[in-house]
Structure formats: structure tokens, C-alpha cells
């Protein structure tokens, strides 16, 4: 490919960007009235990971400890979740067995 065959050297009808932009994007329309801050109430911290997360948020974000605690809490939460799921699975047959025994007696 020679230089004349690409980019600005292409004839205008073959240039991918023609027409070139002359006007910048239109800024946000203003005049919004102030609104109070919003937040999410979903998935509040709980368990061991929750303790760690609350602790992490007491450390400002420019300190690595803040993020390290959060990443650690993430891993702990996954373990907590798996443990809870396992317990649910174990509890179900245990309850069934117990009921069976009660009925037989």
C-alpha cells in the first residue's frame, strides 16, 4: 500500500471519516433542580465478609488496605455462600430422614 492510498491521502469520497466533524458534542442541558443523594439498599454486608466490608469502608479509598480488605471479603463471601448452599442441601435429606423416623415410630 502506498501512502497515497490511505488515510488523509485518500480521495474524500473514499475516506471513512468524511464529513469531518466541526462541532463538538452538545453539553448536558442544565437547570436540573438539586436532588438528595441516592444509594442502593441491595445486599447489605453480613457474615464474616460483612464485618470485613464495614471495616474496609472506614479506611479511606486512597489506602491500599481499603481495597485489599474488600477483595478478601469478596473471596470470603463466596465461601460463605457455598457453605450456606451446602448446609441447605444437607439439611433437606436430614429433615426427611428425621420425619421418616418419626412416622415409623
Amino acid at each position: 500500500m502506498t501512502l497515497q492510498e490511505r488515510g488523509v491521502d485518500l480521495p474524500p469520497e473514499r475516506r471513512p471519516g468524511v464529513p469531518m466533524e466541526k462541532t463538538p458534542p452538545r453539553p448536558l442541558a442544565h437547570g436540573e433542580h438539586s436532588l438528595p443523594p441516592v444509594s442502593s439498599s441491595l445486599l447489605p454486608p453480613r457474615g464474616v465478609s460483612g464485618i470485613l466490608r464495614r471495616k474496609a469502608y472506614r479506611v479511606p479509598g486512597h489506602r491500599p488496605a481499603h481495597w485489599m480488605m474488600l477483595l478478601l471479603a469478596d473471596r470470603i463471601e463466596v465461601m460463605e455462600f457455598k457453605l450456606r448452599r451446602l448446609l441447605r442441601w444437607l439439611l433437606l435429606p436430614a429433615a426427611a430422614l428425621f420425619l421418616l423416623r418419626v412416622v415409623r415410630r
Partner: protein
Amino acid sequence: MRAVVYRGPYDVEVAKKKDPAIEHPADAILQVTRAAICGSDLHLLHGLVPDTRVGSTFGHEFTGIVEEVGPAVRALKKGDRVVVPFNIACGACFYCSRNLTACCENSNPNSDVVGGCFGYSHTTGGYDGGQAQYVRVPYADVGPMKIPDDMEDEQVLFLSDILPTGYQAAEMGEIKGGEVVVVFGAGPVGLFTAKSAWLLGAGRVIVVDHVEYRLDFARRYAGVETVNFKKVDDIVMYLKEICGGRGPDVCVDAVGMEAEGSTPHRLLGLKLKMEAGAATVIGWCIDTVRKGGNVSIIGVYGPPWNFVPVGTAMNKGLTLRMNQCNVKRYMPHLLKHIREGRIDAKAIITHRFPLRQAKEAYRIFSDKRDGCVKCVLLPQA
């Protein structure tokens, strides 16, 4: 409702979940009609974003139909079709009034670093995302843009993130006319960066990646030159050489924290967590761009730090610009480009799945299988 739910690293499933409700007078609830999977969702999926809680729902690129509005909402009513920016912004604070909606100080009051986003961990506020049948949209008068009656959802879906993100990436490169622009990353954001670079007047646009089908796509879709960095000896030297020896005028990082191409960075960033992901591409940008050039970073990195050759940047007199995209600022402008046929945003969609197949969709997108460029979920299918 049904929603994509995070269960831990590399594990999402579609599960039943409580319907979202109005929690604030300016909230709206949308019935989601389209929800895309974004490259940055993969950082969440791979457990790289701090405070990603089990049970959360991802998805920050969506369109929907207004189902319910809070008492303070004036601009929207039930039945309106809207596309929603990924930033949650109040529209009136110090930052919003300067068009920096990505930095809004009212949507994520817990953080000094980042504003609120949909479906992007509790680090960005803990809001659920749109990969669900319904989603809560705070500050409903500010973010959502009504979809013109004559346009389909998919034509404007990417105004939610990747199209403005790509555009802002090019804009931060301060292209004035005739510049040589190198875009690292041939994913959806890289494609839109390349398109936007042409629109802003670039003289030559080169896209770098290692996934061959994506480079093919970039050549067809954006009319760019491409380089597979795995097929050249030293990508920095190669790019300098094909850019007249000095290097390009502008380099754009459209890759972020999971970059291929450097074993030390992958080891330190992704395995040992000594840095927040692999900052390979920032290094390539700084090393490749000519002295006095511009580096634009739109790829996502986590906190708190990365290994970046800042001394080289200083000595070369570079301008480094970066930010999460301030989506709202670009929406009307880019809508016009779509309308007038200069950007066919919908054309990058290669895969559509009903919501219940989200797991499969994530897998194909994450593994870059089946020629996948962009995946869209249909929550009502």
C-alpha cells in the same frame, strides 16, 4: 423476576429475584427490552473488581420501557421507550454541572473515587444492573434518553456505554486533523474509537489486537489497518516503524486490566494481585506514541495501583487523558451520527440470546468463540 445473578468468580446463573421497587422519589422502574454484555462485565465475572457481592446483577448497557415512575419524575411516563447511560448521575452537583456525570457525587456517596454505575459492584454504589427483566433507574429525569419513535432499540442501545465511550476515547486523543492514531483493542469499544477517530479527522487509524477474527471485523467495519501483536516481534518497535519511525500521534488503550501480551504483568496483576490487573497496554501506549503525543485511556483498571512507565511519559512530554465516559454529554450528538448513517452501531451485534441463556452468552463472549464481537440479551423473550 428473572435476572442474571453473580455467584462467585466465573460463575453467574439466571435466577428468580425480587422485583425492584421505587426507593427514591426520582426513581423509575423499567421493563428491560435489551441488555448487552460488556467487556467490562468480564472483569466483574472474573472477580477482579473489589466489593462484587454474591447475588448482584450485572448489566449497564440496556434499553427498556418505563413501567413505573416515582412522584418526582417529570420527564418520563409509563410506556416511554428509553436508553439509559451506564453512569447514575444527579445532573446538578459540582461534577454534573461540568458535564462530568461519571464523577457525580450524589450517586455513590461512599466513594471519593467513582460515581454510581448500574450493575458494577458496590464499589460503584451497589445498584443492580439491567441483565434482568426489570431494573431500578435512579434520577430518572437525568440519565434516560427517549428513543425516537422511528428507531429500534438496538439502533440506539450502545448509546448507553460503548459508543460514547469509544467516542470520548478518540476525543481525549485531541485529534485535530491528519493524525496517526493507534487503537489498542479490537473489541466493541476499540471499533467505536476507530470510527470516531475517522469522524474527528484522523489521517490514519491502526487497530492492534491478537484475536484474528476481531481484526478482520475491524478492517471491514471501521476501514482501518490492523496489526496482530502476536505476529510481530516487538509491537512497540513495529508500530514506530510503520508510523515513520517516530511513532503515532495518538495511542488509545481500549483494553484495560485483562490484557494479553505481557507475562510479568499477567503474573503480577492477575495471579498475584500485586497490581490492579495487567497494565500492559498503558505501557505500550506510552512507549509507542511519539514525543509530545497523546495517550487516551478508556480501558478499565481496578484500584489501588498499576505498574506504569510514568517516567517515560514525563520525559517524552506526553499528555495522558482518561476518564470513565460521561455518557450523557455525548448522547444527542451520537444519536445524530446514527440517524445520519455515519455510524451503524447495531452492526456490531453478532449474538443474541434470551435471558435464560445468559450463562452460555457469557461463556461465548468471554472465550471469544464463534466470531463473537457483541452479545445482547433479550430479557422478555
